[in-house]
């Protein structure tokens, strides 16, 4: 399954969850999302299970805080609905995150969806910087703590340090990309060519159809209730 397809399908899964306020729709689309994930990256199943378990904790908090502090009528039911939706939403997001391959998505986006290479490679560069930045953030924090006797330095100082270095790093990356010809007007070729074929179209249509069908079914059964809050 192409990354673009997976992305598009997940959008179609999430919208109904966002726009529904009943007990059936969110879990139903969560199931669909889980299926999509398992088709694409079956090895991620245990991770999804773990994420869903963690999501229960959050859902519980949503339930509790709405139960105690909500406005309006019938707090009990509303709290339950919101909790279920929150759980499903987290699940769908987790399923998307687990199934995603960012590099692949960007590659396809540039070749198929006509995303400008400058943007695509800038995002690649950011993806490369992030892991080291995280480590660097921790190091800055550690150095500051030792310097200041165990307490933390002000957020502003740490942020300026980290961001200044991040920006410099970004500027360097831009120079390196430009030096290797990113901005050249000549037509570009691809080391990992991808093309949108009939199979992809079929998968996309099938997936979207499943989404629509599920929604239609739920509406027909009277289970679906439109609403945000």
């Amino acid at each position, binding site marked *: 399954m192409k990354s673009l397809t997976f992305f598009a399908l997940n959008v179609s899964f999430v919208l109904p969850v966002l726009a529904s306020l009943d007990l059936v729709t969110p879990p139903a689309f969560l199931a669909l999302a889980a299926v999509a994930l398992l088709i694409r990256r079956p090895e991620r199943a245990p991770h999804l299970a773990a994420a869903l378990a963690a999501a229960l904790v959050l859902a519980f908090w949503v339930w509790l805080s709405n139960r105690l502090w909500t406005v309006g009528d019938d707090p009990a039911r509303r709290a339950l609905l919101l909790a279920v939706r929150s759980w499903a939403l987290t699940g769908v997001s987790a399923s998307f995150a687990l199934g995603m391959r960012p590099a692949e998505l960007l590659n396809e986006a540039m070749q198929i969806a006509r995303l400008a290479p400058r943007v695509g490679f800038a995002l690649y560069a950011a993806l490369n910087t992030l892991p080291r930045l995280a480590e660097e953030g921790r190091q800055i924090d550690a150095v500051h703590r030792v310097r200041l*006797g165990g307490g933390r330095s002000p957020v502003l100082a740490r942020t300026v340090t980290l961001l200044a270095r991040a920006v410099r790093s970004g500027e360097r990356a831009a120079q*390196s990309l430009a*030096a290797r010809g990113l901005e050249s007007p000549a037509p570009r070729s691809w080391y990992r060519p991808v093309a949108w074929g009939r199979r992809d179209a079929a998968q996309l249509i099938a997936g979207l159809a499943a989404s629509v069908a599920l929604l239609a079914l739920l509406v027909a059964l009277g289970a679906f209730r439109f609403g945000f809050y």
Partner: protein
Amino acid sequence: MYDGPDGPARASATRAATIDAAARGPAAATATPEATSAPAADAPEPGEPAILLKDFELVRDGRALVRGDRWELGPGERVLITGPSGSGKSSFLLALAGLAPEHAPGLTLRGEREGRPSTGVVFQNPYAQLACPSVDDELAFALENAGWELSAMRARVAELKAQFGLGALGDRAPWTLSGGEAQRVALASALAARPKLMLLDEPLGYLDGEAAAGLVELATKAGREASWVVVDHDPAAWADWADTHYRLAPDASLCKEPIPVAGRRAVPASAAQADPIRAPAAAAASAASLPPDAPAAPKPATSILEIRGLSAGYGRGPEVLKELSLRLGPGETVAVVGPSGSGKSTVFRCLTGQLKPRSGSFLVDGASYTPNKRRPSPFAWVPQVPEHYFVYDSARAEWENGAASGSGASGAGSPRMADSGAPAPDHTTSGAGSPRMADSGAPAPDHTTSGAGSPRKADSGAPAADHTAPGLLAARAFGLEALAERHPFTLSEGEKRRLNLASALAMRQRILLLDEPQFGLDAASQDALEQALARLRAEGVSMLIISHDPDFCARVAHRVVRIGRPAAAAGDPIAPSEPSGAPAAAPRAPAAERSAP
């Protein structure tokens, strides 16, 4: 004149012959049409320079960095440009690469320029310049931009991997590589489309001895199809490689110099005036090991710091440190030497409570010590990246506010800055000079209040006095006084490191941990650093230094401890920042040519 083993590379007569061969080479080797954006870059006719600059001037923000009547780069020529850090050498490279002013704001090269060969650039920080998802993609990047056909790309990538020893790394993400590997990828990637001009900006700054030698060797083997310009502050590493050596003089001219003898740090005499610290001591300090007037290595009956049987590793990974034992006597300087990845930084991580050791113990002043990162530490820790150490936004605030208030502070709540005068409520800040200590207990929102810009004046009389004096003295001694109002990030590498030491001097902690203090410093700055360390030694500070440079360690330490095992990329040091197109809003003093470019 230097007479090296590679005779033909220097004799101009035979050079012409080499160039002929080179000129024919690329045409045959290039099986695929490469569409480049520059006008067709053919191999120049023998005798015709690859680049010729006439009446040129490189200007940034109105200041001339490099100028001259004529500068020529021959085809296949290998040029080394040296000069003090921050003098504009890197900017010159950016201009040669055609990256100015489009990708280097404020930088313009005026004058006549002939020759726009296809270019490849390698920068100092190995990680910042790699921007693709995998090594294979990185190598193919320049080829993609040039429109190469797929099978040709695959062949070229395989060829590059073989040539640069990157075979096993094809699928790796660049940020997971070691510094040496990443730099090799960067070099290979720059060479991929067979450019006619290769520009290397301090490529060795982040590499240890072995990796650096490896890179120079790769540059040597790369052949003569391209002209190369390498900018470096240490000419010794490139002595065998270079044909021509230019030095960027303080008056912004490029002077041809004899190629220095390979070996440790030849410091051209004229570099001496760039740094006030060097002036009195002169050249004598550079060559000798620990100067005769240094306090003799104390024979510690009691050690101020003792490490016993330290073993540590990351996560569930292999042991990076195995049973390390070490004693540091009062007033002693001990250096820990080893190649990248051998676990040196891990020692500091354990000492400062960042990493829990798997086994081992520490004793400070004879008493058992358990590092805890939330409590005051007996150490002052100057990290590898000088910018990480800075907390304030002016150099003055840095050296005035030294380090922590020391071990007097109790556990919970926030230790106040020793010189903060009247106790300040948690949510206000009196100005940019003083950091507001966030109370680590409550999750307080970070409301910032008034007080823009100015460094905090010494509004508190008495309490500040304790720390101001030593800080200011150190600042003077290290030649930083003129930089008082500058933001620490805008200083040159050497100045930043000295500023780190100046604020460390104002500390109460008696044990100083220094992580690769000599990284990326040019000869003059390194001498200044060594003088600063000598001063610290004289003050009786105990120092534990980590370094991959054994010569440096021999010169500054009483004792050297070697750590051996070259492990994988885990724990690889974070690169120091490179000089950037920094802007210093403040007007620059004339002597500031060594400041950030």
